[in-house]
């Protein structure tokens, strides 16, 4: 198993193999994600009981929580890919990292917007400076920083390196930012009403949530693969295997 993983990792490091392997994965990922979304949302929107305190607005959770989780882990993945590039000079890692940025930022934006919209019926305002939303906002700023930096630098190699460095600095900062925002929050808000009451969640509410979380990760993988394949094509366009692809 471990051997197989190591071999897979090295194969994925070759652009041509990455392109071929992921090409086979795309249909599977698409089907799985689609099924997951349908099942998750049917269960979540139609069968899960309404929350005692929040009523039906809690159904936003089926988007908000998966998006927030993906947004946070995507940044970490981007930083890891950047580190792999910096340390082992694996080009594929740089291209994966570059692809993750806009997708992670999109999920961060979704988490932020749905969180704010959820806040309106719950707290009465469209925006509240609570710890979670503020951390999400700062994460979005970090994403934009990485994206802006990469696009500002002309040279491909320098752009990837700069993005990797910034992602690493950002990823180390994320726990620090989260901690300081939570600390700041306790100064100003004595009791934060959390949007998600995880321990006391009824299984009928929890199961769709877990399905949506898994589905969103699968979907995220699909999106990253789609973008990265474009990067592969763009960078390898002079090679013969790409030529064959174009002529077929």
């Amino acid at each position: 198993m471990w051997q197989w993983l190591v071999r897979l990792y090295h194969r994925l490091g070759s652009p041509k193999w990455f392109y071929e392997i992921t090409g086979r994965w795309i249909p599977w990922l698409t089907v799985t994600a689609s099924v997951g979304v349908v099942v998750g949302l049917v269960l979540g929107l139609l069968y899960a009981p309404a929350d005692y305190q929040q009523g039906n607005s809690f159904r936003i959770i089926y988007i908000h929580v998966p998006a927030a989780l993906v947004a946070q882990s995507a940044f970490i993945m981007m930083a890891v890919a950047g580190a792999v590039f910096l340390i082992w000079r694996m080009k594929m890692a740089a291209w994966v990292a570059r692809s993750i940025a806009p997708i992670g930022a999109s999920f961060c934006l979704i988490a932020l917007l749905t969180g704010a919209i959820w806040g309106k019926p719950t707290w009465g305002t469209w925006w509240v400076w609570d710890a979670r939303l503020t951390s999400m906002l700062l994460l979005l700023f970090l994403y934009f920083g990485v994206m802006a930096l990469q696009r500002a630098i002309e040279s491909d190699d320098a752009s990837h390196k700069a993005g990797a460095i910034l992602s690493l600095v950002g990823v180390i900062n994320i726990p620090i930012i989260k901690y300081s925002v939570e600390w700041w929050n306790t100064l100003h808000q004595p009791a934060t009403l959390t949007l998600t009451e995880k321990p006391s969640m009824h299984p009928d509410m929890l199961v769709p949530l877990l399905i949506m979380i898994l589905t969103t990760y699968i979907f995220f993988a699909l999106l990253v693969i789609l973008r990265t394949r474009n990067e592969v094509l763009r960078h390898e366009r002079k090679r013969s295997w790409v030529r064959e692809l174009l002529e077929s």
Partner: protein
Amino acid sequence: MEFNSFAEFLAMGRHGLYVWLSYGITAVIVVINVILPVMQRRRFFKEQQQRLRRERRNQTGDKQHASST
């Protein structure tokens, strides 16, 4: 099911606006994230195929000139 009619489903017990706004915005952002790479790929193929055709034309052009001299 938690809702007895489609109208109830849409209304979401007074919270319809918020729920559907959230799902709507998410749908838009997700669709954009799917369409952009697909369009990028098509554009790439189109551009590269044009480039290949140009190169091939130049090559045959050179061959013609080479044979005529």
